[in-house]
């Protein structure tokens, strides 16, 4: 039983916090948003230089063999600074597919580019009617010779506009909601037959709707078993959920800190508004919500190592529920306690609220995961 970071983990935390303190204040972030693609290549290179893009990969693959706790540390830091760069899409999700399902050749082809910062990835999964069900797939991948032909439409693909490689879920057999018959394919973003419509998301990130029309890929495109990749998808998406929990904890921490700071300095009726008990109690409830979220983020991080897949899934779903509830409360009340200024684009607080809100609706919202926990027979 230990919730402390190891010496190496503490150093990692210091290093990423330090990097972001130097290069990611609110004004700098605004500038990065204006860059092509909506994020900073220079920051991405710095992350690569510090080895942060290679953290989860094995040493044999050129990485550092770090585990879930290290990802948690990084994601919390990214959440605190509202980082726009595609760490989740590239390292956590893209890297996750390669680590858990990639062949030696696929790893060799893609991991070095991730680690050195020269390549980014995107996960093309969401469909018009699939909502949060990962097995609800209508995009098809049909066998053609040794390779595959992919047809279908994917939506809100994070980093979809900028990525060099897309990781696409597609049905190789069966009906729309069958759990079998789903494959995962590595597709070059510039492949013939791909058309992308990119746009910024509400939280300042970038995504794209992507259509695939007779996109041909080779036999080496499938990650894992092309007829039974759902377990792989679920595993990687669970890791993405855990990472999002940590990012949300970082954003909540900062949101609470900013809010407490604000009500200590904002004066009305001749006194700091933080001296009013109704506001103090609200802030205390925000603290409670953030701490409960932190506990569940740690739990989810450690649950990543659970042997039992069902237990792991329930634990992570439960964490997403807690984080969803907490982030809504902390996010909304941060705006409320800031008053009018909280409603403006120029105050940082609203941007936390927006990112937190989008996190709730990524890979399953609170209701979705609550139902999952309930359907699995509860948690205790």
């Amino acid at each position, binding site marked *: 039983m230990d919730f402390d970071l190891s010496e190496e983990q503490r150093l990692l935390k210091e290093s990423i916090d330090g990097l972001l303190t130097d290069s990611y204040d609110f004004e700098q972030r605004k500038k990065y948003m204006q860059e092509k693609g909506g994020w900073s290549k220079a920051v991405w290179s710095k992350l690569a230089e510090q080895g942060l893009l290679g953290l989860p990969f094995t040493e044999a693959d050129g990485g550092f063999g770090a585990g879930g*706790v290290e990802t948690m540390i990084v994601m919390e830091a990214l959440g605190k600074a509202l980082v726009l760069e595609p760490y989740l899409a590239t390292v956590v999700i893209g890297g996750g597919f390669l680590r858990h399902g990639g062949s030696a050749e696929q790893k060799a082809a893609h991991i070095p580019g991730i680690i050195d910062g020269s390549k980014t990835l995107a996960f093309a999964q969401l469909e018009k009617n699939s909502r949060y069900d990962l097995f609800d797939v209508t995009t098809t991948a049909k066998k053609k010779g040794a390779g595959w032909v992919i047809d279908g439409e994917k939506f809100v693909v994070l980093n979809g506009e900028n990525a060099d490689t897309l990781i696409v879920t597609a049905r190789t057999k069966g009906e729309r909601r069958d759990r079998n018959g789903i494959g995962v394919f590595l597709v070059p973003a510039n492949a013939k037959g791909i058309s992308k419509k990119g746009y910024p998301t509400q939280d300042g990130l970038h995504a794209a709707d992507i259509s695939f029309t007779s996109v041909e890929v080779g036999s080496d495109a499938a990650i894992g078993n092309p007829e039974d990749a759902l377990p792989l998808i679920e595993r990687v998406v669970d890791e993405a959920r855990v990472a999002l929990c940590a990012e949300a904890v970082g954003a909540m921490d900062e949101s609470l800190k900013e809010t*407490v700071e604000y009500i200590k300095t904002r004066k009305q009726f001749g006194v700091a508004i933080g001296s009013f008990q109704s506001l103090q109690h609200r802030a205390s409830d925000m*603290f409670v919500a953030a701490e*409960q979220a932190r*506990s569940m983020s740690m739990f989810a*991080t450690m649950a990543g190592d659970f042997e039992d897949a069902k237990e792991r899934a329930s634990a992570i779903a439960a964490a997403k529920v807690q984080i969803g509830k907490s982030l809504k409360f902390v996010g909304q009340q941060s705006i409320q306690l800031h008053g009018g200024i909280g409603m403006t684009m120029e105050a940082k607080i609203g941007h936390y609220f927006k990112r937190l809100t989008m996190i709730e609706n990524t890979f399953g919202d609170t209701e979705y995961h609550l*139902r999952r926990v*309930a359907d699995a027979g509860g948690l205790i």
Partner: protein
Amino acid sequence: MDLAFTKEEVAFREEVRAFFKDNVPPDTRRKMQEGRHLSKDEMVTWWRILNKKGWGVSHWPKEYGGTGWTSVQHYIFNEELQAYPAPQPLAFGVSMVGPVIYTFGNEAQKKQYLPRIANVDDWWCQGFSEPGSGSDLASLRTKAERKGDKWIINGQKTWTTLAQHADMIFCLCRTDPSAKKQMGISFIVFSMKSKGVTVRPIQTIDGGHEVNEVFFDNVEVPIENLIGEENKGWDYAKFLLGNERTGIARVGVSKERLRRIKELASKVESGGRPVIQDPTFREKLSACEIELKALELTQLRVVADEGKHGKGKPNPASSVLKIKGSEIQQTTTELLMEVIGPFAAPYDVHGDDGSNEAMDWTAQIAPSYFNNRKVSIYGGSNEIQRNIIAKAVLGL
């Protein structure tokens, strides 16, 4: 970071479980599962079994009968005790006055009181709250005046839990009326059998008798019954209240109640099927379980922190425990009410005498719901807890 218990800790948990299984009187366990009140005899019998095993005052220093367990072992012991369920040691003696006596008392007092607390030879009660002094405890008015070799005590205490069983009381009394609020208070202990002590029962909304008013009318108390220094009582009271940071979450109690909710929800029908199969109910139940899991983890963070870094500086997360712990306990009693629906209504006038078998499984559910409203009020109301977080943690 590591969630797992060590091999030794797992073995310890097994040892604790086995001991409870072999030694908690079955009727005591059943009554606790059903949310019934236990008699004094039932409680004392169990506590003496525990004390004989050497676990009666587990967190005390070894020289006074403690176990020398790690903070994780204490956590395991408490959780298993709550979840079994069996009565926790009498807090007023074991967790409250005992630590004050071995920390601030003199040798004679340690010798006189500590072994009797451990074996519950004396049942202790707490004389803190007064009719005019609840959350604002330091405004208390019960006074102790020095007259020769005696204190003369006059005043009134209230919400005195199980004073009807008590042999001894530890009492905050004003000894210097001219001093400012917190400064003139002393910590005095005395026999409840003293002349001039009157106990009047208060019936709570669940129909039970847990709390009392206690009146002092010229009660004569030997001068040596002052613990520590005169007028330093407020410091001891703060020490006492801050002593138990983690047990207050009562995670084990809520776990046991969730088990019972599931058991009853599988039996009771609604819409032609067991309540547990109702999706809305199941989601509510799961939501409660998730809250409890988060609380359990928060508690473990505090426990692990104490184990590693000592009890010196409290982990800020510890202030979450009382608020969330009480809210979840209340939610579990609400869920039980929801499960039994219309059968919550009958009021069992027969008690646990076996004369009304049909009601045995439902009779205590509404009372337990009513009774549990107290948990967000006592031990520093949840509003006081929020004041503490605002001031001590957030610096507001």
